């Protein structure tokens, strides 16, 4: 699974992206966030307030209940501020 981080999510984690293999049982965006939050202090800070985060699965906005699986591109970022 390919993960991408943007804006302050990237700053807190200290990575723009990474390849991960989550354990069985990580089947949704919400479960992926919980798993990631336990990987270290930077991750814990990035995922401390899930309601302030947005996610995309394969470049479409995805809510917490959306399924994720190996081979997906999953991105985490704050609410967008374009224009």
């Amino acid at each position: 699974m390919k993960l991408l981080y943007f804006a302050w999510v990237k700053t807190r984690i200290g990575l723009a992206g990474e390849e991960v293999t989550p354990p069985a049982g990580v089947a949704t965006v919400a479960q992926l966030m919980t798993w990631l939050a336990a990987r270290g202090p930077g991750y814990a800070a990035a995922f401390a307030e899930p309601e302030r985060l947005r996610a995309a699965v394969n470049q479409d906005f995805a809510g917490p209940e959306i399924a994720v699986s190996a081979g997906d591109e999953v991105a985490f970022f704050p609410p967008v501020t374009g224009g």
Partner: protein
Amino acid sequence: MIKLQAEDFDIGAELAALTGGQHDIGGLAVFVGLVRAEAAGDGAPAAVEAMTLEHYPGMTRKMLAGIERKAQSRWPLSASLILHRYGRLVPGDRIVMAACASSHRHAAFEACQFLMDWLKTEAPFWKLEERQGEARWVEARKSDEAAQKRWEQG
């Protein structure tokens, strides 16, 4: 047409390219967004000196194309353009341009506003402001979300 670029753009040249050779266009509405030197306040110590736009390249293109398709299905447009810059910009710099051409002005005006309202909430861009050497990520505005929602009722 969707354009994502770090470089500045020439408004006249973009519009000429967009509408060139089309004789069914009666109105062309254009919005150009600039970086504003937002003053100190709201917890910010000083005015904005620079702004760096980060985006999610693959998804940005996909979302902007989707927004443009929505506008095209809602209004009879002869041509449309969303051009968005990324990278480090300073106050006064052009940041975004939306243009819609139609046979009559109402469709052009409305579609142009629609593009901007949707872009604000759907396009994956983030702004990092610099004030007196301190960088801070800009928070999304509730008013932008309300502006986009308004089109869902109509």
